[in-house]
């Protein structure tokens, strides 16, 4: 058995995987800031194709009235016009990174229509994995 080849394969795999994991962690905060801005822009424009890509299949959103929306329900709300943002300004964004998980808190000053009712101003927490 060619042990030297086996050892070389194992070491090579380690050398490829570890730096990749390390580099992803190093730029996570910037990635999340960018993603947050893109998500904000998508919410404003009602860009459901972006939401489709960026929301996890098991995504849940808790709305201001305590109702829970799945990914499909959230996207449908935008498609149907039941959720429509006029403005959505993010302030005081704070990001905490835990390995592959990120928790961000921010103040969101928004003016939007939800199910025919005007809604102004909220505080939110967002989580990305």
């Amino acid at each position, binding site marked *: 058995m060619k042990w030297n080849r086996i050892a070389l394969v194992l070491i090579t795999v380690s050398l490829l995987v570890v730096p990749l994991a390390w580099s992803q962690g190093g730029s996570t905060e910037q990635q999340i800031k960018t993603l947050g801005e893109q998500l904000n822009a998508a919410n404003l424009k009602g860009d459901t194709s972006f939401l489709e890509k960026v929301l996890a299949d098991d995504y*849940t959103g808790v709305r201001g009235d305590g109702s829970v929306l799945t990914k499909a329900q959230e996207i449908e709300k935008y498609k149907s016009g039941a959720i429509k943002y006029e403005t959505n300004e993010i302030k005081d964004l704070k990001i905490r990174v835990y390995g592959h998980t990120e928790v961000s808190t921010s103040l969101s000053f928004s003016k939007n229509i939800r199910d025919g009712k005007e809604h102004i101003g909220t505080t939110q*927490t967002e989580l990305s994995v």
Partner: protein
Amino acid sequence: MKWKQIALVFTTLSLFVVPRAWNQSGNAEQQIKGVSDQISVAMLKADTDSLEKLLADDYTAIRTGGVFFNKAQEIEYVKSGALKYETNDVQDLKVRIYGRTAVTTMLVSYKGTLDGKPSSGTNRATRVWVKQNGNWKCVSYQTTRMPSANSKP
């Protein structure tokens, strides 16, 4: 160089690490249900020692109305009696595990006093747990008030 020995060391390490990681993810949901129960009981009994252990150092809570608490403020809020529960029932607990992170959503029906005033109702709550040094720690908590039955048309 003893390639055989190097290959054996890698293989042995893999045999130890992989099953351990597998086991941790396998019972993570049960572990999260356990710590969720512990935090509810700690809040009910104003057990700040348990809260000290269960909350991460950089824990944040956003309570109804957008009020923001860090770990020290949350514990002081309970310790001082400003937040005092008589009942604190958790229903519809849902757990999602993402490696070393867990997200829980639930309904919390409570009765108690808030800043000396009687308070009761039902909140939709979200908790985020992260495994740190082998222990699940709560890093984030957010509550959203559910409309009361009386407020519905």
